[in-house]
């Protein structure tokens, strides 16, 4: 921690992060090396595509992706349940892969494309109707996490076996115990996707 602070208190080039001991050296460096470069992004700014829309966001280094999505952007369908990567409720799809947004630092996601439950619902993905039809929910708190995980599976493999569905969803916890309904819903959604396609 101390070491980090000492680095921060020094003079950091906003273009290339080179460290200098005084302002004058930094100035000289910038003029010499970066004179014709486009202006650098402010520190802490990330660019994301969320549900197809571009975002430029200033984030603090300790923010998790969950915090950014849920608290800052108001996409509250992404849920915090276990608080430490045990339950899958905060799952979002990042660059095609399901990730736990509570275990991911927002600042590390620069340039990523993210899909949340809101995007999946807006696209009228057949998983939504199938989940409703099969009562694959009770209190509903963990449901978006299951659906996002299932969407990532179907994106990757549109023809999963029921066993593969169970395996893919086994990292998602549901305290209400709705488990038997999920494979039914996902298999039906897979069928409907094929029909739709």
């Amino acid at each position, binding site marked *: 921690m101390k070491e980090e602070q000492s680095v921060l208190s020094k003079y950091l080039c906003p273009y290339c992060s080179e460290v200098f001991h005084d302002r004058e050296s930094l100035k000289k460096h910038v003029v010499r090396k970066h004179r014709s470069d486009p202006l650098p992004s402010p520190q802490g700014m990330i660019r994301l595509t969320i549900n197809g829309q571009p975002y430029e966001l200033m984030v603090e280094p300790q923010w998790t992706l969950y915090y950014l999505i849920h608290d800052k952007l108001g996409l*509250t369908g*992404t849920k915090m349940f276990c*608080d*430490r990567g045990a*339950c899958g409720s905060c799952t979002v799809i990042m660059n095609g892969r399901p990730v736990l947004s509570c275990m991911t630092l927002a600042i590390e996601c620069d340039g990523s494309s993210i899909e949340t439950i809101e995007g999946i619902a807006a696209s009228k993905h057949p998983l939504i109707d199938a989940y409703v039809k099969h009562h694959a929910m009770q*209190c509903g708190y963990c449901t978006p996490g299951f659906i996002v995980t299932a969407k990532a599976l179907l994106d990757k493999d549109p023809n999963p076996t029921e066993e593969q569905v169970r395996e893919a969803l086994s990292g998602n916890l549901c*305290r*209400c115990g*709705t488990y038997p309904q999920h494979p039914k819903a996902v298999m039906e959604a897979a069928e409907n996707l094929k029909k739709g396609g």
Partner: protein
Amino acid sequence: MDVPGDYKKLQEEGLYKIGADVPSITYKEIGKRGIKRIDGYEKASGKAVYTRDIQFPGMLYARVLKSPYARAKIKKMDTTKAEALPGVRAIIRYDDPEIKGRQLNGSYFGPEWVCPDLAGWALKPIHPVLGDEAWYEGQPIGATVAADSEEIAVEALKLIDIEWEQLPFILDQEEAITPGAPVLRPGAENNILEDPRSRIEKGDVEKGFQEADKIIEFKAKRRAHLWAGAELPSVVVRWRGENLEMWVHSQQPYHQKMLLAEWLGIPMNKITVHVPYQGCSFGGRGNPANNSENGMNILASLLAKRTAKPVKFVYDRSETFFGESGDMMVTHFKVGAKNDGTITAVHIKNIFAVYMCTPGVEHLIDNTKIPNLLCESIVADVSIGPAWWCRCEQLPNCFCLTLIFDHVAAELGLDPTEVALKNDGCDGKDTSFLSKYKREHGFPERDSLKECIEAGKKAIGWDEKWHPPGTRRLPNGKMHGMAFTWDHQWDDVRGTGSAAVMIENDGSVSIIAQHADIGVNPWTTYCQIVADELGVRLEEVNVKPFELDSGFAMMSPDGSCNLVSNGNVVRKAAQKAKRMLLELAATKFENAQPQDLDIKDSIVYVKASPEKQMSIKEVVAKAMPMFDSCVFWTEAPVIAWAWHTQGLWGEAIETGRPRLCRQAHFIEVEVDTDTGLVEVTKVVNVNDVGKAISPETVEGQMYGGTYMGVGRALTEEMIWDKQTGVLLNRNLLDYKYATMLDAGPIETIVVETGMGHGPYGTTGIGENTATVIPALLGPAVYNAIGKWVDEYPITPDKVLKALGKA
């Protein structure tokens, strides 16, 4: 002075009636499969809003200090550094005037009372909101802080300097009652808590033991688990001058409002409560949890008052590991039985650590003809958090009933289903008493237990597979075991609720009342009832029960009791609204009286000439609560409300309503005798629910409960460090509940005898599958390996120990 008649009428109409419910309507939506859940899209699409999702500009975040020690006292506390941290907006200390010496106690009977609903908690002598002494590790203590962010609030707590005095602690209940053990409560002589239910006696057990052919004695121990719901305990509070507004994760928000008003000393009519969706509860957010269990509502209100800003208070996951299941018990059983399986006497001796005032004999009273029962309980004070509802307080009952019946069957070499049938009854009387009751009260005379057992045996292949203990090794080398238990679903005999049904002036129908949804699909069910009672299409009925200020509040501990109370509430309101609607309609048909009319598919018609029709929309077009009526005369709105009370908690005979519906549960396991691992390969749940309004919902409660039960049976356990008294597994990685892969197929069978005491012959569903299954794993493992594992959860080490391998 005129005595108004309406109140008395309401009271009379609202009281439950004993006897079979013969419906006056034809079911169209009630009992139908394939009905879309009313909350389904919101939940699936992430649109459903929970308390944690609520945010306001300028909102502050609250956190509270937790005791790091199992038993400790604050000698000195300095908050200077914390107060100086930028972003900290308020710190309330235990010695601040608004909180000093104040207790969490409080009830409808006055501030000094401990709410009777608090059961196990109430047995503890002191409950400071924020004191200077902790009697369990993790107890809120010392100080609470509101800051601009959660991180700052947490940081501020770390900056509080505290000089602690650590005190002796005890974790184990048997150790606590050993002479010479340190006494945990100041001024007490020993660690035994006063318990009004410490002795429950029926008949004469000594006489019963003399009549027995065999005396069976055994001991069993159950370790603590907890509700561990998905959504964390949470509340958001803001003050609007003298008015307080609150968003709360709670099963019973009206109760929370009562207690908060009393504690703050403000009138109830100044508190507005919003109740978003509830991410699980299982009793964990039940009754006055946020008030009396951890004081969150109080602390958030005080911080919001001091800072004049909205305050959000959410526990983190590690902080939710308190409020243990009420079955942390060590029990000695003595059972007398005849060779044919007739049980003549049961003596239960419990030592509880935490407890919810159901010692374990009640289901033997409610369900069996066993004439001689004695249950003696000691509740020991220990240095762990008090018990709380945890799907549910009946855990000791299911535990005891299952173990007693399965031990008797095992000792006598009988089929446990036969032993169950042999002892079915009520309050020491055999099934002929129940048959007589059914005849006298208009119920069908069906043998619920027999029907459930037959259905379950067929589904699991009992007759083909049942074998003597320890005799069936499978081709994969594992031992095959199976077991059966039975019980009844409480509770269809308690609870109170109210609701209105309004016909909006476009003809759509609103159910108006607050109701806390915890997932058991109640709202769809209410809409089904209202649709059928009114004669309207289901899609025209809606309910948006998020506001307590609607004036009506439906009963909610969900599942087991909600439908029997609220089903009656919405039915009565719908019936009244229908009468009003027909009165209004009669003015619009030529020469018609209300009784000449009826409604079908949202069309009002003349019964004698069905071609004379009018849509509901046409009937109510001018019936509205408000309108700027400068162009036509308006009519009074069609809105009716009802209140229903289903009675008081009590034993079957006390309530005058013996439980007539039964259930049967069957399980198959495979036990690896090298590793001790137990796998659940098949479960069959059979529930006589009287009448299933929503069959998929009923099934959801069965398989859902089974998964929870499997977790409790095999892996869920709170583990404290013996050296420090600190809970070691405060997270969902180390506190393990069942995942999708942790149980084999679960078959759910719904039996509908119509013998429940609820509307349309329903009885409850929901609480008990999770409560029955944990105990059932013991007999299943016994059947597999021929040895009893008498300590729960049944972890591999205990199986190996039973096998003599560890």
